[in-house]
């Protein structure tokens, strides 16, 4: 028996919540701490070819389950937490062409939305977030200020940021500050 019971505490459970900045604005930003379900890092084996049709088969079928990270690398994300056995059970689907690394302990998701969301994120990253260049379903790993994050567009005015757990609260605080001119509603409750 383990000496200590490991209790899962959401990374943003005690982060700032409430309303900040401009009181009257029709471009308000909403920040949401998203469920800490599963985060699987999938890495293609050497010379395995194009796997874009295969990777979605280990996801939960939701619209933005698969997020491209770099050549031959993806994050597969979903709201359900999965046991080690459930994750291992997905490996036969990949048929040796890629491997899975569970990153559920290490990365968390932050939702950010609102009419001014592109303007807020542009304060932190050089990636062109215009809908014409960065359509719904597109992802990019980049720096937001000094913090590395995977930015994914989930709607015309909706993005999700996948960030290392230890940096999540710093990024959260910075996003609030970046959005002050538009007003921010930050929701950590889940």
């Amino acid at each position, binding site marked *: 028996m383990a000496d200590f019971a490991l209790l899962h505490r959401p990374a943003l459970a005690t982060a700032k919540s409430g309303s900040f900045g401009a009181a009257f604005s029709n471009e308000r930003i909403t920040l949401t701490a998203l469920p800490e379900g599963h985060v699987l890092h999938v890495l293609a084996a*050497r*010379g395995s070819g194009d796997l874009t049709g295969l990777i979605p088969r280990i996801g939960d079928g939701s619209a933005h389950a698969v997020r491209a990270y*770099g*050549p031959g*690398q993806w994050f597969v994300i979903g709201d359900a937490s999965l046991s080690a056995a459930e994750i291992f059970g997905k490996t036969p689907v990949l048929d040796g062409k890629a491997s899975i690394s569970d990153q559920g302990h290490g990365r968390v998701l932050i939702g950010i939305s609102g009419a001014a969301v592109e303007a807020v994120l542009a304060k932190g990253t*050089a*990636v062109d977030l215009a809908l014409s260049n960065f359509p719904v379903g597109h992802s990019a*790993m980049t720096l937001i200020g000094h913090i590395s994050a995977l930015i994914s567009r989930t709607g015309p005015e909706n993005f999700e940021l996948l960030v290392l757990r230890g940096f999540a609260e710093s990024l959260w605080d910075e996003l609030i500050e970046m959005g002050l001119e538009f007003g921010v509603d930050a929701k950590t409750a889940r």
Partner: protein
Amino acid sequence: MASLIACPHCGPRPKEEFTVRGDAGITRPAPDAGEDAWHAYVYLRDNPRGRHKEHWHHTSGCRRWLVVERDTMTHAVYTVTDASAPGETA
């Protein structure tokens, strides 16, 4: 230094997202090449004025090693390619 690097995987990104390793033109000597060859490989570098190829790592992006060909005088970037041979990785 060139401030925008056009990563072949990610598109143009600021230099802050990258880590520069240095000269991409040097080749690792054979294990028995001798002390002088190894000393030169580990320590000796040219400081060229003009066109130069370097290894850059896209640390805060796709995490791929790239070969950046740039001009050390004008800061112009000529080419950016993945450092692996074509077809070597997915």
